[in-house]
């Protein structure tokens, strides 16, 4: 299991049976490969569907009118349904999506998230990210602990344009699980072989370190 799979597997343990979940592209979508036994979730996609079920398999009938949040052709489970974008974001904003799992450029100890714009570098637009982060009941960030240059991504205060304010509940990295509470960021779990010192040294935020820290596995 690589780093990304390790993170996705831990994130998947936050799902409860029957949850409606919205998963970002990449690591978040990997969560579906690691669903705990007895946990069945329904994937909502902001383009207007519940019950997405992944790319068509070899030989499976392809319906080009079923696409996922990246616009790629997907498939649907029996029991799923389709609706329009207005209804879709009503579900999201109305708190009917139990969990959203998303990536981050930066995330901070106040639960602020920046994951849509790097000024001077990206001009993609936020798509549905702002609605998802402010609307879903639980917001989980899955991310490598540091960026490609080794700089901390978990900060005292985000520097990039924000996606949403005070909305992040959990941050899951290859090193640890951080729980964002009113009191601050709590270091709740550590990956095997990772020390508190390593997390602290690679994090640019104030961490609350409990006496007992659980293992991520």
């Amino acid at each position, binding site marked *: 299991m690589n780093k990304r799979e390790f993170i996705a597997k831990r994130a998947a343990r936050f799902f409860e049976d029957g949850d409606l979940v919205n998963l970002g592209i990449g690591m978040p979508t990997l969560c579906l490969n690691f669903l705990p036994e007895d946990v069945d979730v329904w994937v909502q996609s*902001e*383009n*207007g569907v519940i019950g997405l079920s992944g790319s068509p398999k070899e030989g499976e009938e392809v319906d080009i009118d079923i696409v996922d949040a990246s616009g790629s052709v997907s498939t649907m489970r029996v029991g799923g349904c389709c609706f*329009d*974008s207005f209804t879709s974001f009503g579900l999201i904003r109305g708190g009917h999506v139990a969990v959203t799992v998303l990536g981050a450029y930066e995330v901070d100890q106040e639960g602020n998230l920046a994951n849509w714009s790097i000024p001077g570098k990206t001009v993609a637009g936020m798509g549905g990210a702002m609605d998802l982060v402010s609307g879903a009941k639980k917001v989980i960030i899955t991310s490598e602990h540091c960026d490609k240059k080794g700089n901390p991504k978990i900060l005292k205060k985000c520097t990039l344009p924000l996606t949403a304010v005070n909305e992040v509940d959990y941050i899951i990295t290859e090193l640890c699980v951080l729980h964002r509470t009113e009191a601050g960021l709590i270091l709740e779990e550590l990956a095997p072989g990772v020390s508190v010192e390593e997390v602290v040294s690679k994090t640019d935020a104030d961490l609350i370190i409990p006496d007992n820290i659980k293992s991520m596995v």
Partner: protein
Amino acid sequence: MTKSKVVSLDTAMEKIKSGQCLMVPGFVNCGVPQTLIAGIIEKGYTDLDIISNNTSVKGKGIGKLVHENRIRHITCSHIGNNTETVEKVVNGEINVTFVPQGTLCERIRAGGAGIGGVLTPTGLGTIMQEGKQILEVDGKAYILELPLRADVALIHAWKADKMGNVIYHRTARNFNQIMASAADYVIVEAEEIVEIGELDPDIIVTPGCLVDMVVQARLEDRDE
């Protein structure tokens, strides 16, 4: 009796003018009115102000309007799937106004339903609140977002009957339903045009009263 709204693509295109504001549905390249876009390209309309969720992918769907330089300004939530749009935005050839996708839905629906504005938590504390009114309700802050309307909406239907009642297929519904309510003129292209009465009253999504014209979608315009 009930008149048919079915017309040729040519006739429908007479309703459009350069410089107009058009609503164009679609999520990436799903549910995009490709035949109507082909008609616009063919007629040479340009300087368009587009309201859409995104611009499909390079050279396809709404991306054709980008490629042919027909767009002056676009109001959308995302252009990341289309490298050409990004390039033209960076070069200043297209002006873009970003709106969070859920807020875009609310604003279009408000425009179609006579609602003067909606309060949304989306974008609060981000650059999306700049220049907008913030209202507090029950101790919670919201951004006041205003309605959007267009001159013409271009709709992609799965099936339309001759009086313009429409149903959509799977995720191709996306922005079609609300955009059909929020424009002064509504042109539908349908993969299949059926007789009045063939669509069950309970499954019709867009009532014919919202639709001005129905055009047969051409298979050759469809690219995925």
